[in-house]
């Protein structure tokens, strides 16, 4: 089986370690990983802001980059949702592109869904003696139905104590360009999220989307709340190798 990695622009430029962790996790399942170098961005910022013309041009580079992939796997529910849910809206009426989209989206997966639903792997042999809470990102949860798969993976981590996040389903206020366009409302939403996370007293916040995690972590820093945030792929990678979960950044070494 060969898997093409769909690495979002945010992860590519700011959080390459998340993508690397995903490579590790896949390779350990004996999967051949391929990174199409022609990919850039899925077009979501333009689409969500209503710039359909611009979004279409960017989406076409995505469609070309992945044209002959067997499976397409991404560490972002939001970008997977862009391709699966929004491309058909974006290219409405353009039958040539719609055919292409249909073929590709049938093989596109948010990575936890790929592990649980396609690979049928829930236990990757990870260990971590730490308490964590989990923020479900909206697009993955609501547009793709990523609800069960992350929990299945997390429940199999030996020693991990999962703490429920109050009001978990409330959006953290990122919303891509929303955070820039409506900064006050977005900040108020992020603040509420940070308060709920702090209430859990968990040592770590886990999530599936770097956009949301960046927003939450950025707000935390301003509020002087120091709870490390981590993408679930990175966490599982660390928890299943000899790497410390938190690399001394916060002055604690949990493992």
């Amino acid at each position: 089986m060969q898997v093409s990695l769909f690495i979002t622009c945010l992860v590519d430029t700011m959080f390459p370690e998340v993508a690397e962790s995903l490579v590790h996790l896949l390779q350990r399942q004996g999967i051949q990983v391929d990174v199409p170098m022609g990919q850039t961005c899925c077009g979501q910022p333009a689409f969500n802001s209503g710039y359909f013309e611009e979004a279409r041009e960017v989406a076409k580079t995505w469609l070309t980059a992945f044209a002959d992939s067997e499976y397409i796997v991404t560490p972002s529910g939001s970008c997977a949702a862009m391709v699966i849910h929004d491309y058909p809206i974006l290219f409405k009426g353009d039958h040539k592109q719609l055919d292409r989209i249909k073929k590709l989206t049938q093989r596109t997966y948010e990575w936890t869904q790929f592990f649980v639903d396609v690979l049928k792997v829930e236990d990757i042999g990870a260990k971590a003696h730490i308490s964590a809470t989990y923020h479900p990102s909206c697009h993955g949860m609501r547009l793709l139905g990523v609800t069960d798969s992350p929990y299945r993976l997390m429940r199999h981590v030996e020693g991990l104590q999962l703490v429920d996040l109050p009001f978990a389903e409330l959006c953290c206020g990122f919303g891509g360009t929303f955070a820039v366009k409506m900064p006050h409302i977005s900040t108020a939403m992020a603040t509420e999220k940070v308060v709920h996370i702090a209430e859990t007293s968990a040592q770590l916040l886990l999530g599936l989307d770097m956009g949301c995690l960046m927003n939450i972590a950025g707000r935390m820093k301003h509020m002087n709340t120091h709870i490390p945030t981590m993408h679930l792929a990175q966490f599982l990678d660390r928890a299943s190798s000899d790497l410390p979960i938190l690399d001394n950044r916060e002055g604690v070494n949990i493992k």
Partner: protein
Amino acid sequence: MNKQFDERITHALTDDHLHHAVNIATDRLRTKKAQALTKIDFAQWSERGREIREHVISNLDYYLTQLASEVRRRGGHVYFCADTTDAVEAIQGVIQSHHATKVIKSKSMVTEELHLNDALEQMGVEVVETDLGEYIIQLAHETPSHIIAPAIHKGREQIADLFSQVANRKIASDTPSLNDYAHEVLRQKFIEAEIGITGCNFGIAETGTVCLFTNEGNGRMVTTLPPVHIAVMGMERVLPTLADLEVFMNILPRSATGQQLTSYVSLVTGPRAHDELDGAKEFHLIILDNQRSQSLGDPDFQEVLQCIRCGACLNVCPVYRQIGGHAYGSVYSGPIGAVLTPLLRDDPESAELPYASSLCGACYEACPVKIPLHDMLVKLRARNVSRGFTPPAERLAFQIYKKTFASPKNYRLAVRSLRSVQKWLMKNGEFHSSIPILSSWSKTRSLDGLSPLTFRERFAKGLVIDQITEKLPHVARKE
């Protein structure tokens, strides 16, 4: 952003009372709803509801004609009103023909669209709202801030203060005392009223029936005590048959307030017949278009007419939770308001409402008739772009975005050049809070810089190696 909108948002965000009241009330409604849904197969009822609404909207002309002829056959009067002026004139006409000066109302969002109370007061008519929430905001000279719970933004202390002021004596802030006071005032109004005005949750085409869901029984009194009853409905609020009503009796109260059924469901079919003991002697039905037909036949927006105004989308919306209803500056607030208002009131100010959403999709998930509100918000933004409503700087930014991201080569170049200048844009490892575009972000949140190498660069250079498998990447496919 439009200045008034910005001011309303800022005002709402700094109002702790509002924030507290809205959070408590929406949390309660949401929890009650979740509980109410476990008792029946809600998904099935809701799917049936969506089908019925979709069918009605696709055949609206047929059902409206049937509704009107059934109402007329039973001796009622029907007015099709193209806009708010037509509707106000029709209502004023009925009032004048009776030389009436005292009107009581039951809760109705559609009359808010007409600014009916103002129009009637200007002609010297006393109008009294009889729904407790509506009565409260009428006293406070405000507008509803929630489709279902108009005074959701007020805490009980604030309400007690308001009542005490009007009554000129101290009214306690517990629910029975507040209720008692409202009862005492309103009882007299009910007895004196010459005209009763109500909204209409559903008009039943088959029987010409107007259906009202209420919790206080005031709807029942408004439709039966005064000799004349005027019902006002948006043209989309039609159901084919009484049997269909069962579906909505199951889903509307559950979605709205988490009740299995509202305390009162009133069915009014025409004026009082000679063998009937109660009911108004005269019945008038106002059917309002007010731009609704613009959405008919428009594949992007027709589904919005399926809305049953349950308010469930407001109760789950994280933006509504922060700013409440008044910040939207329109009759309908929350996600449905952000979609409906620009469709009903096509002006640049309303055109901004669709941006007040992070597109989290909670509204779509909550909507019992599955209106894709999150997709419509994006389509309304696209409509703004194609009409040239968006700021030039934003248009330019997305031109640059397109040029950069539509070509892998340009993307690489852009990342490299941004990386080489970022040290001037950063302070203490974070982006500086004064960079244009980013400043609105970085004022309240830190933002880390770009990584020294992108993932794809590291992958191509063979730097991505797993300690465990010691495997190198297999394929780094060229463009």
